[in-house]
């Protein structure tokens, strides 16, 4: 065996047994460093004759290449092993609880959610959203809506009043969102299509009544809107809102001062174990009132009832929220109990859309 071969065997042996990268680096310096054993051999090439060089050159260069390759391979293997060892030592308890993020804690109140749902449906039918003040005049809340002064129908409303002002005018809290209809008709020429969601107030409190509640009314005024259209809108709304394919509704003649003819609308449902389901069963549940806008109301809003016609409807937002989402009682809506809100509220990005569905 030549000296070169011996050196090769010895170096490859050392490389294979190098324990870590530091030992490997020492071997590399000892072989390939300036004063290294292979470097020394390479230096001898310069003093050789061409024939000697032709013979020894490939041997020495070959040795250098083998050692370099072995060094590289061993370095990779050691690195691999070191990473393995590090990874093996790096363990966390993945079952440790993380903090609940804001998106998990935040909630939207059912009333806001249902208003968004209603807006999505009627928005698609081209209805704008009209609003008005909660503190109203007697004129807009009653008189223009065809409640004659002193009429018992006013008493049915259990109105909250403010003290008369210096002119003797007594403001009140609106008992329904209908004054917004009047404001809309006074401010805008037909065609009119608006919904009016908002807070309403009646001096009444028991199991099913709170002194403050929410209503949404709708108003359509043009030169041809009739009761058939009203029926269609309400049927489409109920199907869309309650997210059912079919709904059976019953229209009953009724009375409201501001509509003529007036109707109340029942929706067919089943009641099983306290749960109400629509689109099935043989019970009826009253959900809204509606009718053709009374000629007196049109006149009071500056519209000629022989030229313009239209219809209006109104329903309780809190009530339809309860019907859809199953809250058994109205009062907790306004008690801000976070347990109730967490349970019945909606996630921040539960955005009701017609394309994605109203509820998820």
């Amino acid at each position: 065996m030549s000296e070169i071969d011996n050196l090769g065997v010895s170096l490859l042996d050392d490389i294979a047994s190098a324990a870590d990268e530091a030992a490997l680096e020492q071997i590399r310096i000892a072989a390939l460093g300036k004063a290294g054993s292979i470097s020394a051999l390479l230096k001898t090439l310069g003093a050789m004759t061409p024939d000697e060089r032709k013979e020894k050159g490939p041997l020495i260069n070959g040795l250098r290449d083998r050692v370099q390759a072995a060094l590289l391979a061993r370095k990779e293997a050691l690195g691999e092993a070191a990473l393995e060892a590090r990874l093996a030592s790096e363990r966390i308890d993945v079952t440790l609880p993380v903090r609940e993020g804001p998106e998990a804690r935040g909630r939207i109140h059912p009333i806001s959610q249902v208003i968004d749902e209603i807006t999505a449906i009627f928005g698609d039918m081209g209805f704008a959203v009209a609003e008005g003040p909660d503190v109203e005049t007697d004129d807009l809340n009653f008189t223009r809506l065809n409640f004659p002064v002193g009429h018992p129908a006013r008493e049915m409303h259990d109105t909250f009043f403010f003290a008369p002002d210096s002119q003797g005018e007594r403001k009140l809290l609106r008992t329904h969102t209908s004054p917004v209809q009047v404001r809309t008709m006074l401010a805008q020429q037909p065609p009119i299509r608006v919904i009016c969601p908002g807070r309403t107030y009646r001096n009444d409190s028991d199991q099913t009544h709170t002194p403050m509640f929410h209503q949404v009314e709708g108003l359509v005024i043009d030169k041809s809107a009739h009761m058939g259209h009203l029926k269609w809108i309400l049927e489409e709304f109920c199907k869309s809102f309650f997210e059912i394919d079919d709904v059976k509704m019953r229209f009953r003649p009724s009375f409201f001062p501001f509509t003529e003819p007036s109707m109340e609308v029942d929706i067919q449902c089943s009641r099983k174990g306290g749960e109400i389901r629509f689109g099935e069963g043989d019970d009826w549940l009253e959900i809204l009132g509606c009718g053709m806008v009374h000629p007196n109301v049109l006149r009071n809003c500056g519209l000629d009832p022989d030229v313009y016609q239209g219809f209006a409807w109104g329903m309780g937002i809190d009530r339809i929220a309860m019907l859809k989402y199953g809250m058994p009682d109205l009062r907790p809506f306004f008690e801000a109990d976070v347990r109730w809100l967490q349970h019945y509220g909606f996630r921040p990005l539960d955005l009701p859309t017609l394309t994605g569905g109203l509820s998820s």
Partner: protein
Amino acid sequence: MKFTLSWLKEHLDTTATVDAIAEALTRVGLEVEAVENKAKALQAFTIASVIEARQHPNADRLRVCLVDTGAGEPVQVVCGAPNARTGMKSVFSPPGTYIPGKDITLGKGVIRGVESNGMLCSAAELQISEDHDGIIDLPEDAPVGQPYAAYAGLDDAVIEIAVTPNRADALGVAGVARDLAAAGLGRLKTPAVAPVAGSFPCPVGVSLDFAEQDRHLCPAFALRLVRGVRNGPSPDWLQARLRAIGLRPINALVDITNLMTFDRNRPLHVFDAAKVRGDLVVRRAQPGEEILALDGKTYRLGEEQVVIADAHGVESLAGIMGGEASGCDEGTVDVLVESALWDPLNIARSGRMLGINSDARYRFERGVDPAFCQPGLDLATAMILELCGGEASEMVFAGALPAAAEPIDFPWSEVKRLTGLELSQAEMEQALTALGFTVAGQGERVRVTPPSWRADVGGKADLVEEILRIAGLDRVASTPLPRIKGEVIKPVLTVLQKRTRLAKRLLASRGMVEAVTWSFIAHEAAKLFGGGSDALALANPIAADLSDMRPSLLPGLIAAAQSNADRGHGDVALFEVGQIFTSDQPAGQLMAATGLRRGSARIEGVGRHWDGAAKPVDALDAKADVMGLLAGLGVPVGGLQIVAGGPAWAHPGRSATLQFGPKGVVGAFGEVHPKVLKALDAKGPLVAFEIHLDALPLPKARPTKVKPKLALSGFQPVTRDFAFIVDRAVAAGEMQKTAQNADRALISDVAVFDLYEGQGVEPGRKSVALAVTLQPVERTLTEAEIEAVGAKIIVEMARRYGAALRG
């Protein structure tokens, strides 16, 4: 309004079932609230005969009865009733029967060692009266084995309808029958009223003593004396009829007036003529007059009330309730019968003031048929003569009946115009005629006169409703409402509406829970937040602590946070987006977005955690909420000023006002003032913010949706750090701005990356460390250029704040 099926059939010739009648009533607008059929519930109860009743061997108060139920072998029943006796007829229920009065289902039993196979029942057990003194004692001829309910006339369904305020005519059974006949449920057969000819002049006169402008209070008053009557109990059929609808029979005369009220919507009043002195005067009450009314209560009257008086004084509250002093009882021999018309508004107001809800008031305030004033008196007189005997006087009549209604000019096309439903003229005319309307003329336009009992009908739309409810609302076909123009809808929400709904989502995304609190709060709470003015205080609040319109959403939210804390949930983050009130004018109502955090309810997490407990909330948490809200709403905050010190509800040193210039205040944030917390009985730590959404600057209207061009620099940004020692009072935000202004073109960002007070920094001063980022645009900066900017910053800091670089 309640009536029985048999009562209805007095007016309506029909073969329709109860179910069909109920369905039709609802269809025509007389909504059925309940149909009660006692016979169904009492099916199992039959008439039985007690063959033998003997003493129970082991119990003094029990008897062992052998009962013939009419079905096979006699049955042994143990009975505790004191009146159980051999030979009596009573009501039997076999084991398995549900006993409504006891809410139990009867089983077979052994009572004190004796087998009992059923029960003999009291009226209370059947829930047909309060009588539980003993078992029902039936006459000798009661048919054994037959259902008791049918025998007792309890198989007559009781129908209860809800009558809307416009349909006074349906407050009498005859009126209900008219609607049903018009709807095709049978033939109306209400008998015509024959006038009663009096045989002597009425000895009591009537005068209507009103000023000219008060004449409407009593348009007409009819009176008659019937002398020589016997006023005992009314006959069984009349008592049963009244009982079936929940009225208590009193005596024949009173029962007749009640029958007239419910049968014909014609309330009457009867006076015992022996107790009336002199003539009757109808007038306004004099202030301070009193009357002991038939309900046993004494009412003090004012000018608002209309009364019927005699020489004694007030005898009756007109149209509302009679007086005790002149009431009829068993001793009544001569009776005065009154049939009058009253002003509905006055009756309503007067009844409300007195707090009397009577059947008469209920009807008069809705309006009775004026044309039936005298026929009603005749009908009652005839019934008195029939049931009580006696002799009737001539009728005294004061006032005048109101003129008949004007005809309505009615084009038949109105029905189609308002409903979309095409009906034949014949059908429409038939419906109106059946309801008592008179149709004059032919062709497209007719003149329709409403009947006297339909004061609610005054225009074309009313006639459409009448036709439609008889034709059936279900015949109106659903018709799609065409879109106004185009197929794809244009956006409909206003900026404020969009911001309102977006604000809710944004705040919820920050881990806050949306509350909806009352619009009215306690007066003291309103005052704490700048409200409590007289104009916004309710005159009739529902509760003392719900009296004033809220000037801020905070009082409601603070109270809510505290009640959650009281329930053990102290770390709450709540918000509300809703209306607040600064005046009683529409413009005084603003839309606020308000949030609070309590305890450790910080955005990154709540309460204790293995990774370190959340710190208590501080004012800057509220600032983060409000800044997040403004950013999310897309409000440009370049011009936003954060001015130290907030409104009165806030801790003066830990709060700020948010404004776009001194006149553009949009809100505030801060720690809630300890005094405010104390006044509201709440505990902190509690921080909050409030933003007025309507005060925020509107987005700029832009002609295009194209975003401004994006200019990105290809050169590396350079960051240099500076730590300055300044007085504690120096605002870090101001220092940020100063650094920024050193070279507005080159400096792209200034961050406060460290804040230190304590060892190494002399007391009263603090170290504020800024990281200033320079973004070269045209070429890489030289070290000298960077140094120049840094030097300028240091000079400015020293000049403005006396800042020294930290050594």
